[in-house]
């Protein structure tokens, strides 16, 4: 009995060691075990159809098309007639071997893409003969198709997910498609749907032997959701046509909802360029064009001094702060002298010399002196310019200027609206209204983007509030419920102060700078502007033709459309921006251009600024916008 003790102890000891080891393996290490992602389970994805995109009137903007990738699994490839095969695929023999080697280097026993996105006709031919080429097979893929060649900047494009994201994400696998820009990117989650997963049992030879746990974890694909945009594609197409030969941007908004009716950048590109096999070639062309920048959305990104349209802002603030009223007048002597030196003078082109100018006239004639006086009164109201400017900043910001607007597109610029601190830092606390007088006329440090200006105009059209501009109207035919877009945002200006400003803007198109662009039967309210810009060529600062700017809304009562347009080097707002604006408004409100205005349409369609751009591009250094 005593000696058996040794065996009892040994058996117990070994039992405890073994159970301890099992505890370590199964309880401690087993806790990290992923039942699905291991070598015995293969996941196969079932890709859903990506959602379609429609414009506000239900016109199809983005659809799907089947595309065919030629796949290869190198270890299954048998000797083949390369010559014939290359002919079928329309590739060179050298290319064939390069591609084959690449696939082989990746993994000989795994399928990889041999040739992407075969054309439909090529596929039909190949399909008949494919059985001769073992190891090659076809994989269907869905690619995007754009029936209407427009709004590429809004729609964006899809492309293969980058590796870093694929690694981080628990949804995307390398090689899968993801929205890269525009609404494809913004609403990726709606559009992509949800891919179905099939879990398959795999054996040690990497061969699939059946479904895993009888499909317990399998999921069906969910189709992507169809999106309806706020865009009016007819207006968009028309606007793009009008902008041909020019550089710039147009943003049109429906003031009563904040819906973006058109978002144009010029030059632009055909959205179909970034689809299919030509994609990589074309994207190089597009993204490397740093001069005309077709992939740069000027409507959202181009931050420039707004120029004269900003005078309305100062007028509204002046009225709200009670430093002016409708009857307040100033005199103008070809300009405004803001300092003691002879150079401290801001010129003015209002043409009314020495007579009192009231608010309406000041806006209609764009009098610099009037708004310089007003601005000075606003800023120096409490003898503390910093406080005054902060107050001014508060009002300006309430129109959505100086910050990202919060619209639903993945590109944007905050622009710039300076506050007291900004100048305290810059001028070491010794500054006043005069120092920053350029702000009075929308020059100086102020920067705004076309969409911000369009929204600003919409707020005026609404007499005091706006809806954050947005591009998405419906998801699967159901209106969006995002409160950011459906609840109006109030500005800090009382409704009554808008009346004189709107009247004045109306005057602009009746008697002022826009009078040559009137449309019969439509009461357009607007304001033209120019932004000066300079280039540094061979070390010399050279003034370039001004950027043309215009904001407008129509009709005066119950406005249906508010827009901002900006044309690079377009000269006075009245010569290019105004006629384009009136054409767009007429097109949108009447559906067509009246005979009387056909000449205007023709002029604008034919007008090209390329000779100016070409001249600039000969010395493409540091083209910068500047101020007086």
């Amino acid at each position, binding site marked *: *009995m005593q*000696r*058996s003790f*040794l*065996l*009892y102890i*040994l*058996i*117990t000891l*070994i*039992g405890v*060691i*073994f*159970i301890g*080891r*099992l*505890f370590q*393996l*199964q*309880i401690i*290490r*087993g*806790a990290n*075990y992923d*039942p699905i992602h*291991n*070598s*015995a*389970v293969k996941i196969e994805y079932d890709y859903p159809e990506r959602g379609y995109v429609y414009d506000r009137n239900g016109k199809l903007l983005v659809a799907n098309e089947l595309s065919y990738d030629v796949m290869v699994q190198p270890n299954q490839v048998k000797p083949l007639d390369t010559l014939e095969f290359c002919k079928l695929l329309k590739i060179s023999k050298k290319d064939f071997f390069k591609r084959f080697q690449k696939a082989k280097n990746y993994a000989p026993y795994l399928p990889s893409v041999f040739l992407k996105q075969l054309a439909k006709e090529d596929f039909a031919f190949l399909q008949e003969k494919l059985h001769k080429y073992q190891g090659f097979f076809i994989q269907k893929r869905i690619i995007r198709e754009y029936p209407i060649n427009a709004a590429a900047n809004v729609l964006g494009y899809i492309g293969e997910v980058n590796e870093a994201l694929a690694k981080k994400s628990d949804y995307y696998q390398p090689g899968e498609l993801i929205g890269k820009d525009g609404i494809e990117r913004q609403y990726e989650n709606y559009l992509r749907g949800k891919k179905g997963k099939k879990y398959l*049992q*795999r*054996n*040690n030879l990497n061969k699939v*032997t*059946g479904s*895993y*746990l009888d499909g317990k974890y399998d999921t069906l694909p969910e189709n992507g959701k169809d999106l309806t945009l706020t865009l009016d594609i007819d207006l968009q197409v028309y606007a793009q046509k009008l902008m041909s030969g020019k550089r710039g941007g147009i943003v049109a908004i429906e003031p009563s909802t904040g819906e973006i009716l058109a978002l144009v950048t010029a030059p632009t590109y055909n959205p179909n360029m970034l689809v299919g096999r030509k994609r990589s070639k074309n994207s190089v062309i597009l993204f490397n064009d740093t001069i005309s920048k077709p992939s740069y959305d000027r409507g959202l990104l181009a931050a420039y001094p707004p120029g004269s349209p900003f005078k309305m802002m100062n007028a509204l603030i002046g009225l709200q702060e009670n430093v002016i009223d409708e009857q307040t007048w100033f005199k103008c002597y070809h300009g405004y002298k803001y300092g003691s030196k002879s150079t401290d003078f801001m010129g003015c082109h209002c043409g009314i010399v020495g007579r009192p100018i009231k608010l309406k006239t000041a806006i209609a004639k764009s009098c610099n002196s009037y708004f310089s006086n007003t601005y000075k009164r606003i800023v120096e109201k409490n003898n503390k310019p910093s406080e005054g400017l902060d107050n001014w900043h508060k009002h300006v910001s309430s129109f959505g200027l100086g910050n990202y607007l919060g619209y639903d597109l993945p590109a944007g610029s905050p622009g710039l609206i300076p506050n007291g601190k900004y100048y305290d830092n810059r001028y070491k606390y010794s500054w006043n209204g005069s120092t920053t007088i350029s702000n009075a006329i929308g020059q100086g440090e102020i920067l705004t983007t076309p969409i911000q200006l369009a929204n600003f105009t919409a707020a005026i059209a609404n007499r005091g509030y706006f809806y954050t501009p947005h591009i998405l109207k419906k998801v699967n035919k159901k209106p969006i419920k995002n409160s950011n877009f459906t609840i109006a945002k109030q500005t800090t200006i009382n409704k009554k102060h808008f009346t004189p400003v709107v009247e004045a803007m109306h005057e602009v198109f009746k008697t002022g700078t826009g009078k040559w662009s009137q449309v019969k039967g439509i009461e357009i309210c607007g304001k033209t502007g120019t932004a000066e810009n300079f280039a540094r060529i061979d070390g010399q600062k050279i003034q370039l033709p001004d950027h043309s700017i215009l904001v407008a809304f129509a009709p005066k009562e119950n406005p249906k459309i508010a827009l901002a347009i900006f044309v690079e080097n377009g000269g006075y707002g009245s010569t290019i921006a105004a006629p384009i604006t009136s054409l767009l408004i007429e097109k949108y409100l009447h559906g067509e251009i009246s005979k009387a205005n056909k000449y205007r349409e023709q002029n604008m369609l034919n007008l090209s600024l390329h000779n100016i751009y070409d001249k600039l591009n000969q010395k493409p250094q540091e083209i910068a916008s500047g101020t007086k």
Partner: protein
Amino acid sequence: MRQERNNIFAGIDWILVILFIILVGFGWMNIYAASKADEDFQLLSFSTKYGKQLIFICLTIPLIIIILFFNSKFYEQFSSIFYIISLISLIGLFVFGKEINGAKSWYNFGVLGLQPSEFVKAFTALAVAKLLSDRQYNFKLIKNQIKAFIIIFTPAILITLQPDAGSALIYLAFFFVLNREGLTLNYTIIGALAILIFILSIFFGSAWVLSILIALITVGVFYAIYKGGKRFIRFNWHKVIGIYLLVILFIFGTNFAYNNIFKQHHRDRFEILLGLKTDTKNIGYNSHQSELTISSGGFSGKGFLQGDITKGDFVPEQHTDYIFSTVGEEWGFLGSSTVIILFMLMLFRIIYLADTHTNKFGRIYGYGVASILFFHVIVNIGMVIGLLPTVGIPLPFFSYGGSSLWGFTILLFIFIRLDAHKNYDW
């Protein structure tokens, strides 16, 4: 009394029988899981592994009845004959054996192959019991010790020559028996020390271990001289020199054997286990996969037939030597530790019963059975859970294979037979 003696089931230990049935039954379920293909289901058929195993299991019933049919006395009297037949069957392999995986371990009878080494264990145990239970036998005599060693190591050497070193290894289990029956622990201690030195010399290099050992011995010798004075040297000088020589010879000898007699794959297995090499692809693949498979079972396992790694055949030899990994995957920590506990219970029961034998033959045979089973469980499960190097021996009652199942059945049921009659004076 006579009536009871005619009933072959009289007095048998039902606990052992029930443990046997549970282990064999559960073993078959796991073989079924590990070898099931989705195509067709053929329960009693030679075309599937699980079908074959089920036939083997059914055939244990007549085997058990035959074993129980014979009188206890029969096994004692015929143990020498069984042993000699065993040796002949082993020797016969060199002539008639069928070579599988480079070893001639099998007789081939058409659909059925027999592996004699699986049966010889039981008969060696009988022979050892017979020898040690002799009234004349006295363990103090070197002559008797050598007799025992010859009985144990003759089959072991024959099996090594097949070559099937793994199956030969289990004959070391008889040391438990010898020790229980009076062999001093010195052999075991020296053996353990030798193994320790061997492992250390691989781990740290033989030169280091040798210098440290010599330094230790020298310190010991000086201490003895200091204590015992010059007399110590005068009377023990030959022993001192002997120890030095033995240590040097042992280290150089094992080093030589390790590097020149062992094959590279043996060395690799060993070094992977010692952590000197990491390898999850080639040789280490088995252990790595098997550990992974067991880990994946978690606490309660994936469920019967739900083991996806098992289904994917990722663990080589999973229905035979690595069957325990299926248990781990499909039945989890609960199932695998239950199996270990079942084996422990069976071993405890055998030892407990053996100790109650008044008859020396039955007692010694009982220790033999327990030791052999114990050794198999240690080496097999130790290998599958990655604690011991890869040695291909089956898990008793669990692993696929007719020979091993019948071998263990014979081993166990002879004991059950002997145990049933222990209280009769015969």
